[in-house]
């Protein structure tokens, strides 16, 4: 019996050892969050939103990876746990940022709270700009840009600052659901729709089904049109922003961004890719790809998104050409007959 028990122990020991680190991390995070998830217990400065923290990559590596010196007696030991430097893991980004003129002005943590930080495509463009706005006052920034940029207010609303002020790559069009402020019908403005608001509007269906009606995780032009024409969706509108797929930290003003042609004179071929980004319960955004070229639709694909010189509709181009050609019928047709019958008028004048 004893021999059998020993054999069994030997068998499960390696398995238990394999599982140990994972269990330790889970226990570690859980231990920390036992207090730090409760704002009343630790105070606002040390409070960590467990729902948001759980969706970060930092939650996966565990609290102790960054706060290595924390002891089992924390906080009774009176020691302040150590904090890892961001560069320990993000050395390349750190070096890139250190070379930028922004480095002197803000630390990593000024823009990125490690307990809530998410990847660029999981946050809204508006949230990206909120970071900048915490130092760069919005009115002052609009006025500065208005000195050279036509419709500066519109540009600052529809573009993440980093699109022009870093070399971030691969800009795409991301459409966010904005909602008319409660109780207003006109003039109240729109804000990003919250998860609770969209859940209420979706009723017993999922939030994506508000637009992705067949829930195939792909938004066709027909689905976009249906969403925009559906009167049930009246408080909601899709607001487009140009967002980068790859984010860099080399903050500066890029020379080619002074030139409107960088975004506007490309013609329709450059603006084919778009996504609809929908907020999830944890506050992150889930992107669903939209049909290629959806933003070029003449009227109802994206009724509020238009980039002059870049997202024109071919159908309208053809209609316009036909109208102008119609105006040429008189000069060409009448002019030809006029030339052929010129003798009639000369004869008449002689008489």
């Amino acid at each position, binding site marked *: 019996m004893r021999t059998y028990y020993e054999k069994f122990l030997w068998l499960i020991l390696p398995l238990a050892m394999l599982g140990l680190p994972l269990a330790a991390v889970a226990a570690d995070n859980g231990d920390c969050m036992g207090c730090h998830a409760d704002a009343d217990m630790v105070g606002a400065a040390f409070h960590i939103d467990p729902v948001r923290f759980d969706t970060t990559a930092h939650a996966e590596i565990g609290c102790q990876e960054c706060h290595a010196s924390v002891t089992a007696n924390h906080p009774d030991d009176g020691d302040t746990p150590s904090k890892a430097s961001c560069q320990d893991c993000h050395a390349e980004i750190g070096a890139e940022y250190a070379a930028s003129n922004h480095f002197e002005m803000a630390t990593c943590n000024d823009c990125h709270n490690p307990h809530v930080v998410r990847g660029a495509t999981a946050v809204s463009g508006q949230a990206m700009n909120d970071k900048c706005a915490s130092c760069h006052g919005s009115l002052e920034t609009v006025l500065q840009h208005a000195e050279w940029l*036509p*419709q500066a*207010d*519109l540009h600052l*609303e529809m573009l993440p600052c980093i699109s022009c002020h870093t070399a971030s790559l691969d800009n795409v069009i991301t459409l966010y659901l904005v909602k008319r402020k409660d109780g207003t019908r*006109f*003039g109240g403005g729109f804000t990003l729709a919250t998860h609770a608001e969209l859940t209420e509007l979706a009723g017993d269906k999922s939030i994506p089904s508000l637009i992705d009606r067949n829930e195939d995780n792909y938004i066709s032009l027909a689905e976009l049109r249906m969403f*925009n024409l559906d009167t049930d969706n009246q408080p909601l*509108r899709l607001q487009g922003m140009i967002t980068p797929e790859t984010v860099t930290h080399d903050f500066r003003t890029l020379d080619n961004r002074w*030139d*409107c*042609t960088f975004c*506007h*004179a*490309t*013609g329709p071929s450059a603006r084919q890719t778009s996504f609809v980004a929908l907020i999830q319960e944890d506050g992150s955004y889930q992107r669903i790809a939209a049909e290629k070229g959806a933003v070029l*639709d*003449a*009227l*109802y*694909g*994206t*009724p*509020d*998104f*238009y980039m*002059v*010189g870049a997202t*024109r*509709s071919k159908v*309208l*181009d053809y*209609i*316009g*050409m036909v*109208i*102008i*050609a*119609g*105006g*040429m019928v*008189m*000069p060409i047709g*009448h*002019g030809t*007959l*006029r030339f052929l*019958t010129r003798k*009639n*008028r*000369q*004869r*008449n*004048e002689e008489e």
Partner: protein
Amino acid sequence: MNTENKIYLQPTPVRIWHWLNAFGIVTLTVTGAQIRFPEYVQLFASYKSVILLHNTAGLVVAASFSLWFFYYGLVARNMRKIYVPTKDDLQVGLLRQAKFYLLTYFLGWSNPHHPTPENKFNPMQKSAYMAIMFVLMPVVALSGILLTNVSPLREIVILIGGLKLLVAVHFLTACCLIAFLFTHVYLATLGKTPMAYIKPMWTGWEEVDQHDQHHHSA
């Protein structure tokens, strides 16, 4: 030719207004083409300067339009007389004028309409100008004003049906005006000589019809 054979058809303010509009509308057409088709039309080196020029020309033409509207509508109060076709125009005049342009002109007959300062436009001109001045111009100007102020006027843009609809309306109305421009310039060459109708818009004086001159001298 002495002044007895001429009539003072276009007063100075009207001529200034006309050429200001002409210059403005041509500028808007050319810059508008580059704004919409930048990969094909590159008349100006900088896209930004094209936009600023288009917006400025648009404001000048819109202001000039407002001047016209208030002058004829509130000061001179003859807007209806000059621009709105009468019952007679609609029943007889339109057909008579169309018959002239499409048939009797080629046979060498003279224009059935003789312009006077009080009755400048023939029935077809009246109808065309009415559509242009009361529909197309206000639509293109108002949509242009909205398109240059999207953020502050967003609620109005949404009320209208969205930015895309507004762009479509602005573009297609502009195309209608360009189409009219070709017809307008061509018809302006249809006088006794190609410059006979164009000159009065520059000098103010129109030489009266030779046929009428015989009557006058008789």
